[in-house]
């Protein structure tokens, strides 16, 4: 068994509004809001690192779970914007948590990395006990605030999220997951020369078909109606995309938690930041299924189902 036990997050204090971004990319604040649903995003400082902000989210998660780092069996860290490719931030986060031998693995998959890490953690937890999943991104260093970089500059923000997957207890049991990869379309979303490149139209086209398909596959094989899902937690890529996914799976839009208006697209961190905020706002115990879904570089995408414990 594997359970979702706690989430955590950390966001930089610096708010960057559409009004600040718009003139740099030759756009208007209203247009940015219309095409993305984003009103502002957060930017890290020059002193921040992926490992540093990932550590803060990890500590927040461990505190909420009421456990120490020494009780972890493994750490998985998703990031598509890490400062250093090899070794990535996972080992640094583990060391900063005071761990000298706990395995810590990087998952360098922008946007979909934390979903993949959650699905892997669910498989690993029965053997390793508690698996900490971290998603940390400083995307502001991977975009160009110029008219040429407009389609990524308007979207991305910085932040980190975390989740604790526990073999023994939690508020929801991870019941199933499905992961997919299609490398043939990898060129529509990638990092090169330190900058993120994205064919926005192609990404929207692919994501708006693949995410609903993954969600429907998961729900169908678990005999759950989309209308019975209590909450959908998606990678906060674009508000319009989330609305399209809701329509495609024929579930009420209000069941799809969103915070992209305040944080922008924080790539692989967004799913966990959203989960943490959703959980903090949960008035009572979970009573229905919970569905996670993400789409990102690779292309990688998928969905994960959790049910009340």
């Amino acid at each position, binding site marked *: 068994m594997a359970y979702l036990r706690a989430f955590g997050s950390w966001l930089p204090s610096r708010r960057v509004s559409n009004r600040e971004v718009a003139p740099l990319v030759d756009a208007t604040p209203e247009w940015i809001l219309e095409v993305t649903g984003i009103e502002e995003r957060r930017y890290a400082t020059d002193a921040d690192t992926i490992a540093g902000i990932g550590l803060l989210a990890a500590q927040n998660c461990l505190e909420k779970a009421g456990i120490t780092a020494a009780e972890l069996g493994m750490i998985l860290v998703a990031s598509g914007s890490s400062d250093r490719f090899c070794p990535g931030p996972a080992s640094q986060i583990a060391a900063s948590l005071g761990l000298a031998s706990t395995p810590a693995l990087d998952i360098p998959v922008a946007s979909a990395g934390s979903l993949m890490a959650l699905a892997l953690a669910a498989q690993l937890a029965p053997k390793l006990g508690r698996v900490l999943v971290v998603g940390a991104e400083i995307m502001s260093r991977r975009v160009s605030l110029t008219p040429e970089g407009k389609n990524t500059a308007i979207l991305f923000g910085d932040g980190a999220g975390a989740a604790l997957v526990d073999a023994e207890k939690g508020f929801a049991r991870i019941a199933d997951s499905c992961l997919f990869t*299609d490398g*043939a*379309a990898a060129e529509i979303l990638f990092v090169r020369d330190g900058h993120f490149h994205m064919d*926005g*139209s*192609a990404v*929207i*086209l*692919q994501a*708006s*078909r*693949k995410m609903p398909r993954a969600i429907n596959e998961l729900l169908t094989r678990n005999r759950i109606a989309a209308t019975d899902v209590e909450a959908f937690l998606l990678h906060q890529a674009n508000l*319009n*995309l989330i609305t*399209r996914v809701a329509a495609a799976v024929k579930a009420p839009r209000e069941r799809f938690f969103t915070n992209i208006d305040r944080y922008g697209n924080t790539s692989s961190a967004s799913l966990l930041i959203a989960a943490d905020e959703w959980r903090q706002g949960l008035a009572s115990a979970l009573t229905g299924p919970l569905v996670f879904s993400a789409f990102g570089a690779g292309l990688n995408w998928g969905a994960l189902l959790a049910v009340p414990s």
Partner: protein
Amino acid sequence: MEPQARILKVLQKVTGKEISPGADESLFVSGLLDSFALTDFVTGLEEEFGVAIPDSDLSARKFDTISKVEAYLAAKA
């Protein structure tokens, strides 16, 4: 019904407008389609013509005009 008329029927349903663009008029340049609407357009074409359009064919270039859509569907038949 001729293929172009059926394609137009799907396009009108997706856009919600009684439009009749020229066969070679760009549906994107004219603002009739964007990335989100194209997804609905492709799904509508699959239902109308009984074909499966793979994700690898999801390119605005292939569905930019009614003529291109007609040629694409003819090749799939």
